[in-house]
């Protein structure tokens, strides 16, 4: 059952549910922030339409900074703006930022402790036809390794907007991951959101396994949980939007309750979300952890749905993974 405290949309399992890309939440979130706080500036590396940075530009042209196709300059420039009192959001595809400019982020933002917000768009295989070069699958790993970096992977456009607003106020270097494809908007304005707090979205009567998911695949995990429940397999779905700092209490509590964990992410299983969960449980409450995600390979061209299916991230793929785990 969907938990009442998560206050999800009534359409959560409706095939006609509204779909929006999480990047849309970036655009609306920065506008909300921009109205409240004059220090907010948005930097763009020649991708303002696809990053939704143009939504901010339309409202606040004087606080929109175009740097051209130069992600390294963008990151260090933002560090300078932050040192002089601004709250900069830098935008590009995650493959280039933090992919191209990782060292600038490491030195001038993380080590330098400047509250720059790195907005990584077009993450995951669901970028689709553009193929492997543009399907960033290593960003969570890169960013969560940096000391002091907050890492958030919102599940839908509403949660993305909340994450952007919260990041604008947290005073810390922060990474937020966004996707290109429209995905179900299944949370609501009333769904609680706090950086660092994971949420139980689904709880069966007698759960045998916890599905821990991050990003848009949290909705897929819910669909899988419902299908599993119908076939007699009870589960908990823990949606973990903040990968760092990790809500270790919630992760451990679920592991204790079910004794079996399956992690789900649109990212390499090495170094990413599943690794963070395995590290946490390995230290505090060792239980078997099966990591569903990209298995040490690059993506390829295809439609988002074809690719998610291919890499085991469809409802069927997740159901099968869970069944395999429980039949061992």
């Amino acid at each position, binding site marked *: 059952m969907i938990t009442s405290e998560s206050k999800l949309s009534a359409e959560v399992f409706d095939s006609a549910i509204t779909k929006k890309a999480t990047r849309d939440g970036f655009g609306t979130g920065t506008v909300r922030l921009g109205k409240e706080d004059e220090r907010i500036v948005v930097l763009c590396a020649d991708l303002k339409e696809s990053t939704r940075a143009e939504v901010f530009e339309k409202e606040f042209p*004087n*606080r929109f*900074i175009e*740097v*051209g196709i*130069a992600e*390294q*300059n963008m*990151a*260090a*420039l*933002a*560090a*300078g*703006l*932050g*040192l*002089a*009192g*601004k709250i*900069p959001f830098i935008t590009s595809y995650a493959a280039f930022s933090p992919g191209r400019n990782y*060292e*600038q982020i490491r*030195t*001038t933002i993380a*080590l*330098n*402790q400047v509250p720059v917000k790195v907005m990584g768009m077009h993450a995951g295989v669901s970028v689709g036809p553009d193929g492997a070069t543009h399907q960033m699958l290593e960003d969570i790993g890169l960013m969560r390794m940096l000391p002091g970096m907050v890492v958030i992977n919102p599940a839908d456009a509403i949660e993305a907007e909340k994450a952007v607003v919260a990041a604008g106020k947290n005073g810390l270097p922060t990474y937020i991951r966004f996707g290109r494809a429209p995905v179900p908007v299944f949370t609501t304005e009333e769904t609680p959101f706090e950086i660092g707090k994971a949420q139980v979205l689904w709880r069966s009567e007698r759960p045998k396994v916890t599905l821990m998911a991050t990003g848009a695949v949290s909705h897929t995990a819910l669909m899988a949980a419902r299908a599993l429940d119908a076939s007699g397999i009870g589960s908990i779905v823990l949606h973990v939007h903040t990968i760092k700092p990790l809500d270790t209490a919630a992760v451990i509590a679920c592991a204790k309750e079910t004794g079996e964990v399956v992690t789900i992410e649109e990212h390499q299983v090495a170094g990413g979300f599943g690794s963070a969960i395995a590290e946490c449980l390995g230290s505090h409450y060792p239980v078997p952890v099966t990591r569903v995600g990209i298995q040490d390979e690059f993506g390829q061209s295809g439609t988002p749905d074809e690719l998610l299916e291919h890499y085991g991230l469809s409802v069927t793929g997740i159901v099968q993974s869970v069944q395999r785990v429980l039949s061992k």
Partner: protein
Amino acid sequence: MALVEKEVLFLEKKAEEIRETIITMLVAAGSGHTAGPLGMADMFSAFYFHILKHDPKNPEWDERDWLLLSNGHTVPVRYAAMAHAGYFPVSETSTLRKLGSRLQGHPERTRLPGLETTSGPLGEGLSQAAGIAYAFRMDGKKNHVYVVMGDGEQDEGNVWEAVMWVAKEKLSNLTAIIDRNNIQIDGMTEAVMPLESLSEKYRAFGWHVLEVNGHDMHAFVEACEEAKTIVEKPTVIIAHTIPGKGVPDIEFDYHWHGKTPSAEEAKTFLKELRTMKGSVPHEYS
């Protein structure tokens, strides 16, 4: 305003104190870079004792000029200058590169007030200076931003991304200085990766370019003042310097880019520094 002779002598004396501290601190540290910091001592004397609007007792002063050191490996010159200017006791320079020291091998803003940025990985200082200068312009603030870069550092692509952007935004509240000492770790810059004509490159990118002798106090201070009068373009001062300046045994020798003197060598060097190989009488000789 041109320097009067008394001011020049004062700045030269401060530069010599900075050089002595550089050598002493590098010997105590046992690792680090020697040639670059010695070559930049005159410019740092000029910055901390004449050019910068700053307050050593209040490093976060809102109206200060900002000096960024992009080629962070040369930070001993900055630590020495800051110590002599009164940011912290000169005795603390002996903690350079030691566990727990505020004086990290490469400068870290969060550890020592007055550093402005964290640097070392090359090519990032101009971008950060640009961000700071742009924010000041947005806020109508008058603070001036200086950024010192190395010449070898000009190999970095990030530098040229920033060079283009600073010119696009006509950030005239920013002055860049390139320490043109012609050496980098692997050899002479023109052998490792030719930079010339560096001034033509910057001009072509839309900058106002000045070239000076980086050991000439008059010339360097004048150039910094001229830079402030140019409002349609950003200015870069290419300051030609002698690596290892002041210690004839190591001047021009790129092998001294990244190593430190032994205690025995330091004795000789300090004596050379104080007497210019015995050619000048000195109270310490």
